[in-house]
């Protein structure tokens, strides 16, 4: 039983990270029906920006005097940076192709992904970059179960972000505008909603969440690497499809499911098949429910 609970905790942590990345895929898809393959790179860029900012704070000596402010500022600035990066990417790679075929935009997204990944490799080097500090060392042991404080922080922070996003989308005027744009671009622009601005905003929010995931993963795994965005990006995309692409609640659920399946597959059957399990679940669900788990109820929860 201890073993099961321990694996459950591992699964929730991993699933939370996937969920944060998956949201970006799903939100962008909801608004412009584009699968933004460059999204995984925002996650990696977030991880790198975290290292750079933390090192900067340490270099100035602020880290030893105000550690919490420095870490908080790093997280916020990283999210902000990636939000702007995503808006830039959108302006350069997607906006000019707004009226082109969807295949052209998809290719542009793939190209952007390769470009960003190589840019990170060239500017940051091919070797892993270690995270300079450890956040919340130590762990909680109850019976045979070990939960590190960092895991707790990650889960709590993920929940906060998810709740915040829900509030943004469902309780604010901006959120309403986003949902309106997702449903009908022509109609929403007739009621004075600038679809270009909303699209930019959607990219920014999605990338900000991915950046938060990137910096948390950096803390959690202790290092970042230029190609770290690829595999989690694919998994998060799978999570978004599993939950029903375009559906925010679905993406959260999908992320959790993919994380759990991976961990339990590895823990109970074999580690070498863990990716296989994640995708078997995806295929099985899509076979019976092609729109994904939450995909039916399109109009209310779609962004």
């Amino acid at each position: 039983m201890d073993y099961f609970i321990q694996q459950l905790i591992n699964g929730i942590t991993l699933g939370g990270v996937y969920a944060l990345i998956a949201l970006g895929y799903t939100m962008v898809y909801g608004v412009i029906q584009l699968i933004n393959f460059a999204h995984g790179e925002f996650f990696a860029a977030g991880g790198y920006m975290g290292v750079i900012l933390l090192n900067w704070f340490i270099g100035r000596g602020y880290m030893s005097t105000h550690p919490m402010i420095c870490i908080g500022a790093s997280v916020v600035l990283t999210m902000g940076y990636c939000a702007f990066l995503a808006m830039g990417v959108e302006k350069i790679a997607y906006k000019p192709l707004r009226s082109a075929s969807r295949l052209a935009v998809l290719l542009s997204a793939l190209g952007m992904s390769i470009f960003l990944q190589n840019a990170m490799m060239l500017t940051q080097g091919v070797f892993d970059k270690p995270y300079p500090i450890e956040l919340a060392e130590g762990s909680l042991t109850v019976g045979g179960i070990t939960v590190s404080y960092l895991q707790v922080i990650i889960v709590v922070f993920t929940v906060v972000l998810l709740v915040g996003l829900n509030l943004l989308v469902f309780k604010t005027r901006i959120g309403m505008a986003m949902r309106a744009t997702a449903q009908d671009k022509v109609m929403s622009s007739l009621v004075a909603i600038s679809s270009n601005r909303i699209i930019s905003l959607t990219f920014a929010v999605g990338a900000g969440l991915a950046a938060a995931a990137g910096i948390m993963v950096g803390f959690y795994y202790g290092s970042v690497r230029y190609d770290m965005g690829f595999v989690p990006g694919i998994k998060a995309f799978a999570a978004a499809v599993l939950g029903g692409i375009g559906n925010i609640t679905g993406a959260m659920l999908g992320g959790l499911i993919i994380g759990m399946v991976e961990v339990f597959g590895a823990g109970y059957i074999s580690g070498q098949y863990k990716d296989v399990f994640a995708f078997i679940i995806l295929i099985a669900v899509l076979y019976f429910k092609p729109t994904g788990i939450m995909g039916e109820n399109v109009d209310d929860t779609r962004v």
Partner: protein
Amino acid sequence: MRKRILFTAVAGLALVALLAAPAVAKTLKIGSMSPLTGPYAADGNDIANGVRCAIDMINASGGIPGYDKIELYPQDTACDPKQAVAAANKLINIGVVGVIGAYCSSSTIPASEALAEEDIIMITPASTNEKVTERGLPYMFRMCGRDDDQSKVAGKFIKEALKAKSIFIVDDKTTYSQGLADNVAKECKKLGIKVLGHDHVNQGDKDFSALLTLAKSKKPEVFYMCLQNHSSGSLMAIQAKRMGLKAKILSQDAMYHPNFIKVAKDAAEGIYVTYGYVDTTTDAYKKYEALYTKKYGEIGAYATYAYDAATVLLKAIKNAGSTDPAKIKAEIMKMNFEGASKWIKFKPNGDSSSNYIVFVIKNGKYIKYWGPEKGFF
């Protein structure tokens, strides 16, 4: 017109002189095979330079009696089996006495078969696959270690130094890492160490929490971490520490990399690593280092083995006083001296002694810890 005739005549004469020159001077021809282009070009050029350095060293000590000069014919294999066979045939046509190479085991094996038909001696400085010397070829030798040497040292270390009775093994499914992990598992079973589990991860995985939870639940005394790449290794070490895995961690040569410690930081402390050790304090190494660095720059990974391989070949030719392969082989088998990379002594199948020892990471440094012959340092 007359000018052109004159020019042609002069050029012709020069050509004759060029062609005639080698016929007058007696040249010893040896070949080298390594990837001089492509992704492994750095290692391949190190090999060629190591051989050149050995020739320089022999020349400095008076050369080989009966020959005016030693000529090296470096060939590019590009780590491609087809190109390696073509290179071997080219060297056969040139008429070399012996060949140092190749680099990739997959090139060495087919090339050695072509060379074997002509009874040409081949000494590989870098191919670690067992098969290289397991095919019964009489003139195939190996200067570097073998893949299964490492597992034997690991097994012995677990049994004799750690005195452990159980082990959990993980690899990342590459030919190299899985082969090594399988051998370690076999070795442990032979020594009566219980293998509690042998699991695999994927290349590029970042999250090992599920696997480590599994390993922890089995309570092994030793956790054998066999990964192709030090970057996954450092991630696994960090997560193992955080998870509270109590087993001692033993790993292999890929973790002998400064970046492993740089990323894993204190999670790397106390991890054991098996690694082919080159003692840089011996006289033989220092002599080689002085000559090599002066002419060819920084010493690369395989240059030292290539240097030793070429030294063995040239010394054997010198001692035999002949280019007859059987006589050279007899001399190679008699070799027993301190080389630059290790103590050189060949076994009947063509392998030379293994130099794997165990290091422990202490205060961010690899410290010599235990050797299969010497025990604790």
